[in-house]
């Protein structure tokens, strides 16, 4: 119940003055409220939790994480494991 799941915003509209939208969770489409992500646009990814968008993905941070992995990979290749 508490698990937020990432999904892709595929449509945005208004219901009773609330920003609502359709979200694609890898094929399953559900409705969510986006009042807490006023800036979100169609095509963005966000964490959806009990029908509410809580956080939009930060693409820059995603890039930085990939960079981190590239560093770890090249680092692991260069250095022998001190415990072995």
């Amino acid at each position, binding site marked *: *119940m508490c698990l*937020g799941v990432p999904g892709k915003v595929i449509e945005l509209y208004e219901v*009773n003055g609330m920003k609502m939208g359709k979200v694609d969770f890898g094929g399953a489409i559900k409705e969510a409220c986006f009042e807490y992500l006023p800036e979100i646009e169609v095509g963005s990814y966000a964490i959806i939790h*009990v*029908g509410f968008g809580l*956080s939009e993905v*930060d693409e820059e941070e995603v890039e930085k*994480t990939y960079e981190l992995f590239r560093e770890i990979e090249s680092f692991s290749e260069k250095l022998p494991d001190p415990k072995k």
Partner: protein
Amino acid sequence: MKYLDEYRDKEKTELLIEQIEKKVTRPWSLMEICGGQTHSIMKSGLDQLLPPEINLIHGPGCPVCVTPLELIDKAISLASMPEIIFCSYGDMLRVPGSVGNLFSVRAAGGDVRIIYSPLDALRIAKNNPEKEVIFFGIGFETTAPANAMAVFQAKTQGVENFSILVSHVTVPPAIRAILESPEVNVDGFLAAGHVCAVMGYWEYEPIAKKYQTPIVVTGFEPVDLARGILNCIQLLEEGKIGVENAYPRYVQQQGNLEAQKLIKSVFEICDRKWRGIGNIPMSGYRLNEDYEKFDAERKFSGIQEIQTNESSVCISGEILQGIKKPDECSEFGSRCTPEFPIGATMVSDEGACAAYFRYGRMKLSRTNF
């Protein structure tokens, strides 16, 4: 799916585990706060892949598990009333009360409905003006924005036959309670990423400092968890204290300010009783004065006092505090299974007992290992 599959990648997880192996020089106990993280750890086998020096202790972050028995009994009484439509997240229906559960109310003819979002309950209220609709608003800071919006909308749209039975708890007071308990020994915490997506992590900084314990904001997929563990081990091995964010693609230090604003205008902080743990001061939310007519406990105050009856064999309180693990319970896997749960930690998808059972962490398999 994008932003999901790459964080379930086995090779990336193994790469991080290699780094953890290189860093770790002595035993450390880390507590993952959230039950969703516990399940992901068990499902991916991370607990068995990590070096033996690292002991993962499972925390109290399972909302279904910590909802006090009194409130479950109250929910059962309310749901049994003929004029009421009782709406809840699916997990809550199987949680045992003193007598029966919400499923048994439904079997006996009560109108109990499983919903996905509190806005669904509001819609049901609008479509059934002759009925009273009650929503069981449980959860940590992650469900608070949704529940706050449902109540705010009920007030704005004048939906008077809608109320919520609130059982909201918050993470920081629970961390403090765990750190003050003489029975629990936690060296570092993996904070729940989605709670921090809402609230940020500024609240954790004074806690880390006061108790000299690192706290790392951590996500839910195996790669995210391994990264959180690596960060925490790095801090511990280097003797550094502080809060680090290992889930930056969704969490910022200040959190979601829009959500915090509505939470503040609808709820106020109160003491809350946690099932199996007891009262933790200032550890939850209740509706404030402006929204009291949407508070089911105040609206239906006639059902206030109920005699509760907790199982004497269930040790879920100790499990939720990290004092014991599920396979140390004498009932685990024998008299207590997800099909016939004795305690709430065997019911929920986020309960530690259910995670151990589902992914085969029996004592037997451990000694065979």
